[in-house]
């Protein structure tokens, strides 16, 4: 393997003085115009923002997080901790984008961040002067008192001064999507190893998904400009990609990062579908989240180079040595003209030669290895020009906003200044093992590469290959590394000691780590949290291991003893938009529409969400003052004539089988087996702990056939409860369950004229006379000339009432028919608001009372609880706490001053008690302004409430400042004898 020839640096344009005339995979015929901090610049198709900036000679890209130090481009990939910029404008503005992964497009607008008034002259750089104050734990130590100031003063001030880019204010104008894919083999990484794995799997007939982070797969085969068998490795990459693309069972996903491994061999990946264009075309998602379920996975994610810690190692112009090669070979850009290469291994030598071949001047290779270590290595010869300084180190980078030289300490101890504009640093390569630890795997230390590699226990189905597995070459000592993590600092001159950075994104220095260790935070996980090392968006890709090395040196423990912090998903940042996918705005969650939805919409009804259902709340008419005007009109129609309402949202469960009655006896606290065929019974089911689960009705159509109704809110929960009980508790019972909520449209017909209206649609000869079809009767009937229907004589309103069910497709037509044929009876549709008022007037409990804290007895339904049979919840309902005399029970309330209002949620206290928690004796669950009674009414749960009827207490609502005297009454305000129901 040798390097491809790259032509001598010759500016291809005066605007891109560092662009090489040849080489790389950029298309020089396509010029893209973009701007950085307002300056118009140009690059080529295939560039990243970073490569284009370097081509133009722009090296200062931003200011650092804490000290506002000048920062530039460290790497050429997703590990970048330093060159973070704001991209785009307006609602598409995105902060903290790595310039090294942002693909250039025509019209791209980029801004540096965290600087004021300008990048070059940043006022906040004064923080550097006070740097001795801003040590690890600074915030914890400083802003301790008074605590009340934290939210109002400290945090906003700190967030303004520290921190990076600005988030866009408005909603994201782009859209995102999520999908699920299946594969036999998922290949993570499209470098040489990944491509080989994909090809082998594809040729074996496997279904393959290949994900590569970059726009163009090839990995370091391209970055290193390798030659294979006398041809550029790129040619081989292209041939492999061509073969893979022609296979319909292979899916190649460029610009896609696998960011997490989850249970069930599930992998999360994000595809940057249209990040490389200014605005995605209509209906094209900006990003796409993949859930990939793969039988096997090949981790071919490569390795990440780390630097060596020395003073001012964050100056723009200090770059990872491998990244220097990427810019030369992938992008055709020379990152510097006069370079010092600082290395502790042979790989640095490769960079020196690449620089020299591309026309750069390598002034010196500063090789930290001793003479013997370096000569024992199979090192490629140093470039002809420049010196190879063995046993030497770079002590400090010189220069202000850009590197202007390197202070080098020779093996002899002598220090020398070497002028240069680039310091290429190679501290060794760390396998990208992150995905191997997401399910708990522990990395293993490998002396040969001076790094951790994936351990033995990989996620199920995963294999690691190539550099991700720590395999760098066939040789025993892959790249002849002699670990050197940190250069011993030079004797400090002057009062300000230069800083040496470990974590560039969070401005963590070697001294911060040592301080943390001195203060007792000497475990890797403690260190991370105390100093925030590796906690930035780059997740410590370049800093974790050097940080651990500094800690090890301080504590005297070995690196494997110290260990790495646990890598968790995501491997690289994932935008919230991609995680949300299409679930936003109106598509946040699906909605259920009742059968009469379209009709209600035409009527101009106002809708309310109950659970997922969109129910008609009320039907306004021109001239209505407010919603209550409509609701009152609807209540009055029910009380004086007839109202109809779509109650299809109630849960309906068909229960059949020889043991159906026995099954329901065990489910309900009251007895259902004694229910006669053709009759309906109200029932209450308890949870195992004795608290009420739900209430509703059961109708019996034959010996072994019941239809059970549930409340709207609990429909799914009750169905699940019944299934669990049948499948796990009593599988031997001959019972089958079917949810028929969606099959039936059910319309409530209530009011004194309900029977008159019903008579006009029910087919003869069925007799609905009061004597023939009694209160709580049920029957299968025909309506409107043959439509099959079920008729129930039940009432939630306290009036003569029926519920008529027809197959859902006929629901809307039935609603319309009833309105037409009942016009002379004064029929009106009523919505959920009127329904709520009617049931409060009648004292019926609903969701607010069935709130998971109430027993049947609390709700006045204790009489239903059978003593003759076993049922779910019976035993635990007898617990002392659930039968205590002072439990809060259901009562009615009306204001002492009838013109006053009562608030739902108000708490009850005795007439002359203080309105505080200690005096609390209950609370209002449901409240309404009763049109029928002409004043406010409410249902409440109140301690010893049944003994208190007639007493005056206060309903206090501290939120609204209301404090109202109310009289405790029976919860049934309307027709307590029930005469109207039976009329």
């Amino acid at each position, binding site marked *: 393997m040798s390097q491809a020839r790259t032509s001598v640096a010759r500016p291809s344009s005066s605007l891109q003085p560092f662009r090489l005339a040849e080489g790389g995979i950029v298309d020089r015929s396509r010029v893209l115009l973009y701007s950085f901090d307002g300056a118009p610049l140009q690059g080529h198709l295939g560039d990243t923002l970073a490569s284009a900036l370097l081509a133009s000679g722009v090296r200062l890209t931003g200011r650092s997080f804490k000290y506002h130090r000048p920062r530039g481009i460290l790497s050429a990939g997703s590990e970048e901790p330093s060159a973070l910029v704001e991209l785009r404008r307006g609602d598409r503005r995105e902060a903290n984008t790595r310039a090294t992964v942002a693909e250039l497009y025509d019209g791209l607008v980029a801004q540096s961040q965290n600087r004021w008034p300008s990048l070059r002259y940043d006022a906040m750089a004064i923080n550097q002067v006070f740097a001795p104050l801003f040590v690890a734990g600074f915030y914890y130590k400083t802003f301790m008192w008074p605590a009340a100031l934290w939210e109002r003063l400290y945090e906003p001030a700190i967030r303004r001064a520290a921190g990076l880019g600005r988030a866009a204010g408005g909603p994201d104008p782009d859209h995102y999507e999520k999908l699920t894919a299946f594969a036999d083999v998922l290949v993570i990484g499209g470098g040489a190893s990944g491509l080989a794995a994909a090809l082998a799997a594809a040729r074996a007939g496997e279904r393959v998904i290949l994900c590569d982070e970059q726009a163009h797969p090839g990995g370091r085969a391209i970055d290193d400009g390798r030659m294979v068998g006398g041809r550029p490795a790129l040619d081989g990459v292209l041939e492999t990609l061509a073969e893979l693309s022609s296979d319909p069972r292979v899916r190649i996903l460029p610009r896609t990062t696998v960011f997490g491994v989850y249970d069930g061999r599930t992998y999360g990946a994000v595809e940057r579908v249209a990040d490389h264009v200014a605005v995605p075309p209509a*209906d094209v998602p900006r990003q796409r989240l993949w859930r990939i379920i793969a039988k096997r996975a090949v981790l071919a994610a490569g390795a990440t180079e780390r630097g060596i810690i020395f003073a001012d190692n964050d100056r723009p112009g200090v770059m990872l040595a491998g990244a220097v090669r990427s810019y030369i070979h992938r992008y055709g850009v020379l990152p510097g003209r006069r370079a010092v290469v600082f290395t502790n291994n042979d790989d640095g030598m490769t960079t020196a030669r690449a620089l020299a071949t591309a026309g750069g001047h390598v002034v010196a290779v500063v090789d930290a290895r001793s003479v013997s270590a370096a000569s024992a290595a199979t090192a490629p010869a140093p470039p002809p020009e420049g010196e190879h300084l063995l046993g030497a180190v770079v002590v400090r980078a010189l220069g202000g906003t850009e590197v202007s030289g390197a202070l080098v300490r020779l093996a002899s101890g002598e220090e020398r200044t070497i002028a240069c504009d680039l310091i290429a640093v190679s501290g060794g390569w760390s396998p990208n093992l992150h995905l191997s630890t997401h399910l708990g795997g522990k990395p293993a230390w490998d002396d040969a590469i001076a790094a951790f590699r994936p351990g033995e226990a990989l996620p199920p189905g995963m294999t690691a290959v190539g550099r991700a597995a720590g395999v760098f070459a066939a040789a025993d000592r892959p790249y002849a590394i002699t670990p050197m993590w940190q250069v011993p600092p030079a004797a400090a001159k002057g009062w300000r000691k230069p800083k040496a950075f470990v974590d560039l994104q969070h401005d963590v220095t070697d001294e911060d780590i040592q301080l943390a260790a001195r203060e007792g935070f000497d475990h890797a996980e403690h260190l991370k949290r105390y100093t925030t090392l590796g906690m930035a968006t780059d997740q410590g890709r370049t800093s974790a291991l050097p940080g651990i090395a500094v800690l090890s040196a301080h504590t005297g423990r070995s690196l494997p003893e110290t260990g790495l912090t646990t890598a968790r998903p995501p491997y690289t940042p994932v935008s919230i938009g991609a995680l949300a996918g299409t679930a936003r705005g109106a598509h946040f969650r699906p909605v259920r529409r009742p059968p009469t939805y379209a009709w209600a919409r035409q009527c101009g009804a106002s809708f309310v969400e109950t659970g997922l259902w969109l129910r008609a709340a009320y039907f306004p008419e021109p001239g209505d003052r407010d919603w209550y005007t409509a609701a009152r009109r609807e209540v009055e129609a029910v009380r004086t004539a007839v109202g109809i309402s779509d109650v299809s949202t109630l849960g309906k469960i068909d229960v059949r089988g020889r043991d159906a009655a026995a099954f329901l006896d065990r489910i309900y606290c009251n007895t259902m087996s004694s229910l006669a065929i053709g009759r309906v019974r109200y029932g209450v089911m308890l949870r195992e702990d004795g608290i009420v689960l739900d209430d509703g009705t059961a109708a019996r159509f034959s010996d072994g056939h019941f239809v059970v109704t549930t409340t709207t809110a609990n429909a799914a929960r009750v169905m699940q409860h019944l299934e669990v009980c049948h499948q796990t508790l009593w599988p031997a019972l001959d019972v089958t369950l079917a949810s028929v909520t969606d099959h039936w449209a059910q319309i409530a017909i209530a009011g004194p004229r309900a029977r008159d209206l019903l008579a006009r649609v029910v087919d003869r000869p069925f007799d609905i006379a009061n004597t023939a079809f009694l209160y709580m009767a049920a029957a299968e009937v025909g309506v409107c000339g043959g439509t099959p229907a079920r008729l129930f004589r039940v009432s939630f309103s306290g009036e003569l009432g029926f519920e008529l069910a027809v197959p859902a497709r006929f*629901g809307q037509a039935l609603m319309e028919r009833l309105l037409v044929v009942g016009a*002379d009876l004064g029929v009106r549709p009523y919505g959920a608001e009127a329904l709520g008022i009617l049931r409060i007037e009648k004292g019926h409990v609903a969701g607010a009372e069935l709130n998971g804290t109430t027993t049947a007895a609390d709700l006045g339904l204790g009489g239903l609880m059978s003593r003759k049979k076993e049922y779910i919840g019976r035993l635990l309902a007898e617990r002392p706490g659930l039968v205590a005399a002072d439990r809060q029970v259901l009562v009615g309330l009306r204001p002492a001053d009838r013109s006053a209002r009562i608030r739902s949620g108000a708490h009850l206290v005795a007439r002359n008690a203080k309105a505080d928690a200690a005096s609390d004796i209950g609370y209002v669950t449901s409240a309404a302004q009763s049109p029928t009674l002409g004043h406010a009414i409410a249902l409440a749960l109140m301690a010893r409430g049944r003994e208190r009827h007639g007493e005056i207490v206060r309903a206090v609502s501290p939120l609204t400042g209301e404090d109202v005297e109310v009289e405790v009454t029976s919860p049934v305000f309307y027709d307590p004898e029930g005469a109207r129901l039976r009329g």
Partner: protein
Amino acid sequence: MADANEPLRPATAWQDALEIGDFTATPIEGRTTLLLAVGPASERDVRRVLADRLGLDLPQQCRAVTSAGVTLASIGPGKWLAIADAVEAVPSARRLADVLAGTLADLPASLVDVSDGYAALRLSGEATRDVLMRLVPVDVDRAAFSDGAVAATHMEHVGVILIRTDAADGFELLAPRSFAVSLAGSIETAARTVAASRRFAG
């Protein structure tokens, strides 16, 4: 006043058919669907009786078969849907129910009319699999989900049933009727995204 005895006009669960790129979703209305629930002890007897008397083949788990004009689809342990195409929905539902009920009268099996509980869509076209990738977490590759395969799965958190009706890219989707309009919106979004993404990549 309108004639109270004029038959009620059925409403459709879905709106119009959807055709976007190489994907088509066609509503199937007015069909009869019965839920056949059979206890584990009697499954063998029910299978024999259906085969002997009606020539109907009760399929294994996660499979659907069509014979004698009726599709039987397994949607869970002991549960099958019996689906019959019909123009006149109601009489046909009665007919199918009566025939099955008569046949199974002595067996511990139940039949529930759920014709209006499910809204059905026929999905077809070469882009169908790409659309389904965005909607259901099911491997619909032919090797994994062959002709007659059934999946009881979820779409936008809603329980749905997906059946592969033919070896080409033909599927049937059964969704709870009340969710139909909402899910149709999700299907349309997915189909538009597929078509636009193909143009963008292509």
